[in-house]
């Protein structure tokens, strides 16, 4: 719809185009630092990563360049479970984080408008965890959820958990950690759209025979969709590649290893660079596909 709107004014748009042409050198000059930055820190590493992913290993252990497509087949074959698990965990964490964040953001952005002090206070509470390193916070959760910690003891006392059961090292702990760590990233973009939500639209909806639920579904959600989309992207993308929560030093275990952990161990521990690089590219590619389908389907290009 936005495109048709701009397309309608074909005549004036063409006239406007002519002016920037004269200044294109200035524009290029101003863009130069950004372009250099992207080339140096994005294009070069990406090309290097692609080259690495195609290297072959000679019997003496040295890596040499070759068109070793087999690296991709091998790594996806070997680590398929971890890839699936990563996306499953990331989607699960994103959905749970959304379920927690939306009501929270709605309360701060809409209900708390009448009390600006409460609004600021709650926003600070959402952001407050950032003042402590996220490694430390995840370690703290490890302690809280550990076998002799309060949560496990309490659950065992209530017979909700078997005597031999754990929480840390299990998938539930990893998903919990991901959800916990990414809630602020989900909450803040949703808050920004809800904070601007014009209450008069809700009144109009109510005036037009829509009850609370219908108004929420038909008006509030669509109007806050840009925030939901940015929040889910900010959660899903890093969560899919996360290697901290699922690490065995933190909340993960052998049954909850994610693709990030595999890549990390192949790069830094086993020094199997081609596999690590191939997995990174596979991860990147899948995220790219998932995200583009998602953004296209949600149709928010119209609202942004």
């Amino acid at each position, binding site marked *: 719809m936005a495109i048709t709107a701009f397309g309608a004014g074909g005549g004036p748009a063409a006239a406007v185009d002519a002016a920037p042409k004269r200044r294109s050198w200035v524009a290029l000059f101003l863009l130069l630092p950004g372009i250099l930055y992207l080339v140096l820190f994005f294009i070069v590493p990406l090309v290097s990563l692609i080259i690495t992913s195609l290297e072959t290993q000679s019997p003496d252990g040295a890596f040499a360049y070759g068109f070793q497509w087999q690296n991709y087949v091998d790594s996806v074959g070997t680590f398929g479970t971890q890839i699936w698990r990563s996306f499953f965990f990331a989607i699960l964490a994103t959905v749970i984080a959304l379920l927690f964040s939306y009501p929270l953001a709605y309360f701060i952005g809409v209900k708390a408008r009448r009390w600006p002090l409460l609004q600021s206070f709650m926003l600070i509470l959402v952001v407050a965890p950032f003042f402590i390193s996220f490694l430390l916070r995840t370690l703290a959760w490890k302690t809280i959820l550990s076998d002799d910690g309060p949560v496990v003891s309490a659950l065992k006392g209530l017979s909700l958990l078997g005597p031999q059961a754990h929480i840390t090292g299990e998938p539930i702990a990893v998903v919990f950690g991901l959800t916990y760590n990414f809630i602020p990233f989900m909450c803040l973009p949703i808050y920004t759209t809800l904070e601007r939500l014009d209450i008069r639209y809700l009144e109009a909806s109510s*005036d037009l*025979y829509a*009850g609370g639920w219908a108004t929420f579904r038909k008006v509030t959600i669509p109007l806050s969709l840009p925030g939901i989309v940015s929040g889910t992207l900010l959660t899903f993308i890093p969560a899919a590649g996360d290697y901290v929560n699922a690490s065995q030093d933190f909340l993960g275990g052998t049954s909850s290893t994610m693709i990030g952990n595999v890549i990390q161990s192949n790069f830094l521990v086993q020094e199997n660079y081609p596999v690590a690089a191939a997995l990174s590219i596979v991860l990147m590619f899948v995220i790219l596909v998932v995200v583009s389908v998602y953004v296209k389907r949600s149709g928010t290009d119209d609202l942004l």
Partner: protein
Amino acid sequence: MTPQNSFADSGADLELTGISKRFPGFTAIENLDLTIPAGSFFALLGPSGCGKTTTLRLVAGLEEPTTGQILIGGKDLTRTKPYQRPVNTVFQSYALFPHMTVLDNVAFGLKRRRMSDPIGKAHEALRLVELDHLAGRKPQQLSGGQQQRVALARAVVNRPALLLLDEPLGALDLKLRRQMQLELKTIQNEVGLTFVHVTHDQEEAMTMADTVAVMNKGRIEQMGAPEDLYELPHTAFVANFLGQSNLFTGPVSSSTSNSISVEVGGRRIVVPKDRAQVHDGTVTIGVRPEKLTLLTAAPANDSGENVIGPGRVIDVSFSGVSTQYVVAVPGVGDIIVFAQNMVFGPVVEVGAEVWMSWTVDHGFGLSDSPELVSAGA
């Protein structure tokens, strides 16, 4: 209490009894009683902050009254939610949903009520406001006037028993406003709904409404047909808010069976008793500027005419169809006269000495105490 699945057959009457609305720190509406008969075009007229929009929001259910009852079509709907009321509003800001097309906006209410063929009915409503060709556009791609018509279609399509209009023409330029006023009136005649129109534009209220209620400081000052309000205002507020008035205050010096005489600046001004609210003591009387006739010589005594003057013309301003003169009369104050621009009329210059006369039947007496009048003026 669920929204009904059929259209209202006709407009319903609205009855407000003992309505008050208090917000923290101020009272928006004070003990308001109001009955609006079914099928009428009713205008609530008043300056900003007089409580007219709050009244509308109370009827729509967007605010809850502190005291009192709201009855629509005889049913008490005071405590019901907005979506349970057979009422639709054309909002001042239009509040068209930006994420929906014009068509979806118009069909919204029908779909919520699960009416049959919402899209067909929405097209029909858009045809009524002559915007069906823009049905696929988003509201922000329309001009202000077009958005206003979409807002109207979105409300009218539901055939509410009561249609509330909250200064819907405020954002439009004069020409478009005139056009929309006519369209609104036509639509009201066609669909036979009860319209409640809130406005601060006295001309708009008078041209469109069957009944006008002038509101001030949370209460209704006067209610009636536009002509009656204009010709016979009861209070100084109404006299000054609806058009302009010349007001004089003085003691009642004598009275007959059907008129009172008031001492103003050494002259006796006669007002018919049935046009005066108060018949003794110190009273305020008035006359509309266009009812005055300018005279360049002192007129002969005529019992059917009131005369004031002499005074000096201190300002003349020409406005096309008429000329406005301001005449300073010693002991009375400034008096405004509108004179039609007719070729044979007396044309006077600034500084000329003039008298003014008007037919006794054109005067009116107000109910306000004199202190209030001077404070209000």
